[in-house]
């Protein structure tokens, strides 16, 4: 069977009347979207432009008289420093691990929410969403207390697990610390990904499922051949949002290890240069590099998934 795709005609219709109408619609569109556009420019574009500008200077907040233009020197310092690459590696590790686990877990939770009995569905959804409602710093402290040596209960509950003893110091080494950081992140944001996937699941037409069932497809076959391909856009949005979020991880690391044992992330590095060292120039350059990383991830996802987001909106 072949399908014929009819492309919408995007060219302006001929004739003065139609042109007037399109012009007035365009004007209305600008009037409606204009204020939001201006606010977006103010709150997003301006700080980014300012960071790009400052990143070209040697500027210490406590010594404003000695600002000097250094061009791209700050970027050269950062990109030739192994601290940057270690932080980048740690950030990438946290991102890949947490997003991968969250995708699987989130999908399972979305299926549970989708198929739960109507009566318990609201309660179930609320229960699953509770971790997402908890503020990240609060959840980081909760997990830190659970795993710490003096106030924690994890060691006494799980001492039957090989490698866990009463005096296991979870924040004493890189991998142990990263394990707890990832766990806290996964607990906190899996509900977010499951909510987005639930929206995607709800959009899969029932007729397709029924047709597959009539054809004798098993649950797995329906999942792989019908459900997942039809929610590609939702999966991409969920993955993209979470990846960007995970790549900017800061609070959990700040609370749990304060960057000790090589657990510093890129955001943490930006924080240290800008806020602790008050080196605005260097810190801005780290922030700009973080921003560029995020842009590259976004473009990579959109190109990699080959999803036209306008299709997801039903245009």
């Amino acid at each position, binding site marked *: 069977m072949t399908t014929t795709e009819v492309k919408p005609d995007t060219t302006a219709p001929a004739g003065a009347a139609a042109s007037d109408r399109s012009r007035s619609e365009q004007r209305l569109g600008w009037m409606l979207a204009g204020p939001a556009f201006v606010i977006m420019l103010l709150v997003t574009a301006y700080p980014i432009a300012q960071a790009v500008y400052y990143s070209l200077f*040697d500027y210490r*907040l*406590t*010594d*404003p008289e000695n600002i000097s233009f250094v061009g791209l020197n700050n970027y050269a*310092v*950062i990109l030739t*420093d192994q*601290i*940057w690459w270690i932080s980048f590696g740690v950030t990438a590790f946290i991102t890949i691990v947490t997003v991968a686990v969250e995708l699987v877990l989130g999908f399972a939770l979305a299926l549970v929410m989708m198929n739960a009995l109507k009566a318990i569905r609201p309660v179930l959804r609320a229960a699953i969403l509770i971790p997402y409602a908890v503020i990240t710093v609060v959840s980081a402290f909760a997990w830190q207390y659970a795993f*710490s*040596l*003096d106030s924690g209960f994890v060691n006494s509950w799980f001492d039957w697990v090989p490698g866990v003893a009463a*005096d*296991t*110091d979870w*924040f*004493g080494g890189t991998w142990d610390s990263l394990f707890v950081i990832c766990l806290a992140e996964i607990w906190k944001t899996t509900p977010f990904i499951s909510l987005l996937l639930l929206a995607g699941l709800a959009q899969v037409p029932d007729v397709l499922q029924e047709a597959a069932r009539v054809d004798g497809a098993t649950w797995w076959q329906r999942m792989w051949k019908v459900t997942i391909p039809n929610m590609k856009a939702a999966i991409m949005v969920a993955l993209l949002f979470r990846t960007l979020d995970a790549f900017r991880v800061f609070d959990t690391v700040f609370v749990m*290890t*304060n*960057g*000790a*044992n090589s657990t510093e992330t890129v955001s943490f*590095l930006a924080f*240290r*240069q800008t*806020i*602790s*060292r*008050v*080196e605005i120039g*260097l810190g801005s350059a*780290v922030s700009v590099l973080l921003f560029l990383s995020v842009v590259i991830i976004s473009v990579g996802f959109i190109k990699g998934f080959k999803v036209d987001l306008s299709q997801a909106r039903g245009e």
Partner: protein
Amino acid sequence: MTIRRARWRRALAAAVAAAALVGLAGCGGAPAGPPVLNWYINPDDGGQAEIAQRCSAASNGEYRIEVSQLPRQSSEQRQQLIRRLAANDSSIDIMSIDPPYIPEFAEAGFLAPVPEGVAQRTTQGIVNSAREGASWNGRLVTVPFWANTQLLWYRKSQVQGTGLDLSKPVTWDQVVAAAQRKNSTIAAQGIRAESLTVWLNALVESGGGQIVTNPSPDDPEGVRLGLDSPAATRAAEIMKTVSAVGGPGFSTASEDENSEAFQDGSAMFQLNWPFVWGKVNSAIEEGTVEKATADDFGWALYPQTTAGRPSAPPYGGINLGVGAFSPNVDLAYKAAECIVSTENQKYYFLSNGNPAARTSVFTDPEVVKEFPMAPVIAQSLQQAKPRPQTAYYAEVSESIQRTYHPTAGIDPATVGPATADLIRAVLAKEELL
């Protein structure tokens, strides 16, 4: 439905009108009453707020002090104050500053000069370390308020039988040997935090060295470091040895964790500030700890690095700075003088457990009754040395934390020179931190 909506609208309109009226009222004319001085304080048990009230009342309407609380960590207090002062915030009249950050504040021009008379009156009869810590480039730039120092705390029952005589000065080697003999631990600050720098500095200074030998106020690249000296190598050796008897959570242990470990008896020694005494007594009052625990607490001067050479314990505390952009500098200094009066320092010691900067307070009978270790604290404060005095202390401290943590993994022969290289590169803006 429509009636309900109309009611909502009326309520909303009334609320908006009320808010607008309040806003207009706020704009009209000068505020009534005496000038308000904003005092940015570090968190405590309410002592500074009480002193603010006392001084406001004593001023007879000349000024009124209002307190605003800063974050808990001293590094975060610095960050908040610096950000505000860099924006010429005129609302900061008085601020409680941790001593190591004073050079940075002074160098950046954030502190109003201390009037000659105030400098003279507020430094009369104060401990050496407090005078040193409140000054920069040989001039007093802040007013000493209270002075802190670390003692060697020990559990009397556990020390028995180790042959250690704590009535005389002891060395780190002796303390480590005693802990090993009893198969117990020493609680020191092994966490990656500012307290690690405090520990290293005390060890280096006790051995006769200095972390920063030339502060070079104007040029960060001119800062000279003494981290490749024999004193620094010896300090690193001690850190490594102590971490071996520091218990399983040593690399994440801060002052709070250590006071807990010492209180519950799992640590035989601890190096900590005097707040641990107030803490155990509060626990006894609450009924969570038996009185015998406090009776078992012993205290001695900070251990020596080399036998016979007096130790240089850590110096801490808080000094008062007056904001350079304050419109009430004279009044702020008047208020600061009131805050640091002998009477208020005594009150603060007794109520919040923070030792005074003035020596006469330590011999006050009331203080000695409440804090039997007061004479040891006073002696410790006379011997104490401040942390590296440089306008780039934050960089120096964070570099140290990066290379010396975890202390169990350091190589005493190379860690000092490596840290010095890192600090030099960081100050030259050739490396990240």
